[in-house]
């Protein structure tokens, strides 16, 4: 029958009139041994919590509307970007020292428009399907770039030859089991070398879009979120890959977006539908990079002078600390 005033032992998991059941105060849902009943009680508890939360929200909203303009401002939710540990090397846009450094470092000739970038793309030994195709697509994205096969040549011997032939940058795509997984980018006339771990590479045919191939126009470059000194130098490295004068007729843009130390590369074609609206259409490959090390000179694994290496034990300790 319909439940008396109090169910004494309170082990009946499904009383037909739940509001009249009282449990001893030290009883919790997790103490019921029967899984089905425990599950049922837990669901009920959850629903109750949700109702209470909704009611509280409504009440708060009514209060806010009642107060009108005098209401306190909305609370900002905490995100990892908000809570990020403040990095001392964050670049202040007005910092003179940084500006001076940037005017005199290895990319100065590029930014002063004295050199035109010429890029050599190559892979590790014996590249397989995906890597080869990815190299080709990358060379269409980056203007003035050439792909050469490695055939067992040593990097240390390639580099002087490249410098002799006027190349400004060298990209080596490392491959593992037929998929590219690493990228070494070195600025040639004695410039810094950056070693990245590459992940989630999507070739052009795998991207869901209905666009055509990138044309030969020089794309624009967008560098997002490179805040620290290290980020700045990496950002300038990327910028120096592309010629300095983008052709706006082509309406192509290459984006390097840094988020929590992951650099996302995308290649889009944009179109301005109106003053406040722009449509973008993705074409070209996409990949993400994570910086592993930055060397001062050109690629040298033994005697190189490392400006920054990613040390897992020291740098990965906090979830809110990022280096780029």
């Amino acid at each position, binding site marked *: 029958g319909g439940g008396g005033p109090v169910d004494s032992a309170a082990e009946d998991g499904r009383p037909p009139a739940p509001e009249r059941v009282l449990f001893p105060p030290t009883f919790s849902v997790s103490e019921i041994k029967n899984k089905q009943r425990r599950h049922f009680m837990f669901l009920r508890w959850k629903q109750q919590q949700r109702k209470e939360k909704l009611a509280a929200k409504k009440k708060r909203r009514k209060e806010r509307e009642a107060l009108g303009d005098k209401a306190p401002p909305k609370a900002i939710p905490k*995100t*990892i*970007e908000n809570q990020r540990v403040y990095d001392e090397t964050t670049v202040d846009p007005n910092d003179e020292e940084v500006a001076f450094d940037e005017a005199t470092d290895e990319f100065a000739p590029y930014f002063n428009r004295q050199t035109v970038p010429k890029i050599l793309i190559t892979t590790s*030994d014996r590249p397989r399907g995906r890597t080869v195709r990815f190299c080709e697509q990358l060379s269409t994205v980056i203007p003035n770039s050439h792909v050469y096969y490695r055939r*067992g040549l*040593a990097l240390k011997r390639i580099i002087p030859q490249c410098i002799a032939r006027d190349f400004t940058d060298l990209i080596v795509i490392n491959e593992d089991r037929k998929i590219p997984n690493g990228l070494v980018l070195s600025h040639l006339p004695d410039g810094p070398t950056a070693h990245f*771990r590459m*992940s*989630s590479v999507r070739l052009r045919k795998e991207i869901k*879009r*209905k*666009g*055509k191939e990138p*044309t*030969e*126009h020089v794309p*624009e470059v*967008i560098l*997002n979120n490179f805040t620290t000194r290290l980020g700045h130098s990496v950002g300038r490295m990327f910028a120096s890959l592309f010629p300095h004068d983008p052709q*706006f*007729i082509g309406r192509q*843009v290459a*984006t390097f*977006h840094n*988020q*929590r*130390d*992951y650099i*996302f590369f*995308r290649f*889009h*074609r*944009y*179109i*301005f*539908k*109106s*003053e*406040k609206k*722009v*449509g*973008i*259409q993705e074409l070209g490959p996409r990949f*993400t990079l*994570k910086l592993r090390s930055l060397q001062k000179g050109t690629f040298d694994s033994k005697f190189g002078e490392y400006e920054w290496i990613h040390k*897992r034990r020291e740098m990965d300790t906090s979830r809110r600390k990022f280096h780029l």
Partner: protein
Amino acid sequence: SPFPFPPQVLLSKNYEKALEEIDENLIYWPRFIRHKCKQRFTKITQYLIRIRKLTLKRQRKLVPLRRKIERRENRREEKALIAAQLDNAIEKELLERLKQDTYGDIYNFPIHAFDKALQQQDAESESESDAEKEDDEEDTDKREFVEADDSDLSDFEDMDKLETSSEEEEEVEKKASHSKSKGKTPLKGPARRKRPYIEIEYEEETEPIAKTKAA
């Protein structure tokens, strides 16, 4: 293994002399065992030679993957991707660049400014804006033809179709494409560029100009 070990004999560095020394030292052993000994010696010398050759070439360093770390990094990458909201960020950046006039005169969207001017002073600003818009449209038309040389033929065909179509078709297409997708414009990319320039008020005035230019 035998204990006490028989005394060790150091073979000479010369391959052939070493074979002879094996024969001398194992003089009373059966022929088969001597042969096997010499075979073993040959194999050892060969792989030592190969080692010495390989160390001179490029060594491939194998770095082991750490499963937990790989998984952690993949997870963080996904979350970073979601947090990044790339499309929005790119669109914002492009709009900002448009505002800051990095594109110069290629796009003319002074629609805001013109609307405000229209609201303030009706007749005068309208005539001025007409003249300016015509000039700008001429410029953009010219540029579009330059672009046609570079871009693909199919885009150009789309543009042609749009130019020759009537007002109604254009409006219908506009509504259809607006209802289709949110931000992206897959087809009719360059074609859509004409829309902002051709406002419904001015269409009758400017279309004949565009047609003559196309012809």
